[in-house]
């Protein structure tokens, strides 16, 4: 336990920043997940031939098989990357901004609000009074409305919103909105199956439509949240101390919350409610690579994308040709994996 004074004494202090080793590992995970997502599938295409095609070497794939890889598998892999990265980055940011390890899109009501919005659109679209294309917009409105409500209720107890009151308010808002969503869903028997399928989460996509829809919001969310990585470390000492360090804590917090809610809504509107990604990935990264947001945010982005890509691979191959909802896969494999990481790092004494 005695720290070696050598490095510090020589004047080169090791501040928390992303180490090359972890960046390489993260990028490698993404590459592996993408390749696996492209070569494995129910169409009976030779994986080796797909790899040859990817490497630009001549392969025996015919036009139809190339179309399957490039028009069906590739968009789905990219969508998985985008959704997984965004959900886990948003989860990590929520946890940082509320200084609560359990904070995630679900806790604040963002996911429930987005769910209600999308359910309303699905129901009304079946009646012919709106179009399914409005789903993302309804998800944004629902998520931001829910977070605004949570914020207002959490702050109404006093002039200063405390973390605990915010989270309690979030739980209340989430249950209320979920109740409304269930009510709307049950009242409309003809669309109940469609709503269920969406709620359980899916990445099935026809072409690049969903990717194009999500990409701009995802990029904006990523840029804003990653830019706040050091500010989130400052906020970790609490609002009063952050203020004495010259940071307007309430304002920074609001910017991060809005960005994370937008990202969540965008991801939820194309993929449904995929649980666990926003909790498991950031916590695994924290346990293995360090607590600083300068490490946790970029690595959550990389590993979140890779994780969801692989989860989707399992979702579409395990009981092929049928698909398991991806939310089931993330929870089924994610939860035990997380427990494993938690236990092993406890033994190493890395957690407190």
């Amino acid at each position, binding site marked *: 336990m005695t*720290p070696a*004074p050598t*490095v*510090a*004494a020589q*004047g080169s*202090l*090791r*501040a*928390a*920043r992303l180490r090359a080793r972890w960046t390489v590992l993260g990028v490698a995970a993404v590459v592996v997940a993408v390749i696996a997502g492209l070569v494995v599938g129910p169409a009976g295409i030779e994986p080796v031939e797909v790899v040859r095609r990817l490497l630009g070497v001549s392969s025996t794939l015919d036009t139809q098989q190339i179309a399957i890889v490039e028009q069906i598998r590739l968009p789905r892999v990219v969508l998985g990357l985008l959704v997984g990265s965004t959900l886990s980055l948003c989860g990590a940011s929520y946890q940082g901004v509320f200084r609560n390890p359990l904070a995630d899109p679900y806790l604040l009501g963002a996911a429930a609000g987005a769910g209600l919005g999308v359910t309303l659109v699905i129901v009304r679209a079946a009646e012919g009074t709106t179009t399914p294309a409005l789903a993302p917009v309804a998800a944004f409105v629902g998520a931001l409305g829910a977070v605004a409500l949570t914020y207002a209720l959490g702050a109404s107890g006093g002039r200063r919103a405390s973390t605990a009151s915010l989270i309690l308010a979030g739980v209340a808002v989430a249950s209320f909105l979920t109740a409304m969503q269930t009510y709307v869903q049950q009242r409309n028997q003809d669309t109940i199956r469609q709503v269920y399928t969406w709620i359980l989460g899916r990445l099935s996509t026809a072409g690049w439509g969903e990717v194009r829809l999500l990409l701009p919001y995802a990029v904006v969310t990523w840029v804003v949240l990653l*830019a*706040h990585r*050091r*500010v989130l*470390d*400052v906020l*970790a*000492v*609490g609002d*009063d*101390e952050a*203020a*004495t*360090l*010259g*940071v*307007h804590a309430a304002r920074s917090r609001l910017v991060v919350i809005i960005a994370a809610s937008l990202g969540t809504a965008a991801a939820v509107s194309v993929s449904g409610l995929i649980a666990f990604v926003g909790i498991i990935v950031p916590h695994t990264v*924290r346990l293995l690579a*360090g*607590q*600083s947001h*300068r490490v946790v945010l970029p690595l959550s982005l990389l590993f979140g994308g890779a994780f969801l890509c692989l989860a989707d691979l399992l979702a579409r191959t395990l009981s092929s040709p049928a698909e398991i909802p991806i939310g089931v896969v993330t929870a089924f494999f994610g939860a035990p994996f997380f427990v494993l990481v938690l236990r092993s790092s406890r033994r190493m004494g890395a957690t*407190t």
Partner: protein
Amino acid sequence: MITCEGVSVTLGDRRILDGIDLHVARGEWLSIVGPNGAGKSTLLRYLTGAVNGEGTVHLAGRPFGALTRRERALLIALVPQAPVIPVGMSVVDYVLLGRTPHIRYLGVEGPTDVAAVHDALSHLDLLDFADREVTTLSGGERQRVLIARALAQGSSLVLLDEPTTALDVGHQQQVLELVDELRRAHDLTVVTTMHDLTLAGQYADRLLLLDAGRVVVEGPAAFVLTEENLARFYGARVRIIHDGGHPVVLPVRERTVNDQPR
């Protein structure tokens, strides 16, 4: 360095501070003393901008209200009494937080910031602890880390909220000696709140005795720390002994029935 006139703070319907006037010269050490609930901590919080109130404050000749948060942070550093220490944060990273007002809002630290952190750690003899997690340090080490953060912040006015409360008597002296050395070496102005009156008198140039949100006595330790003042404002039975020009506050116990020889 800092001048306050008519500072009043009301929280809820309670008036915590009631017309405080305060002046601290550059390089001076002022200790704020007073019984529990007198408003000592609120006064420090007011000076950092954490609570709002009435009154005018001038900091380095400029009106407080005209300064941005960042400008205030460049002038005033706070060593909090009960700091929130993020889990898993190393000493380097924690002291680096002190550089926040020097770093662009969305930027990261540069070589000057790392050099400032190195200087602060070396002044406080903390270089060997640089990679340790702050939460694993002892009370005395942790207090030095907090002071290092304030030093790295580079502000010329340092506020310390009860810097000795959680420490044993040896570490209390070490920390206060350290603050005094840094004050002389870096031409710092120091304002502390203190519970221990003897220590307050030994280190501060001047004491300010608060009671019920008002300044009741102000001046050199020998003038403020009298048996009458402590009886009146603390409700304490003490004897004052003079040791090398510093008053020593000695609590005394009146003989009770149990102490009578049988």
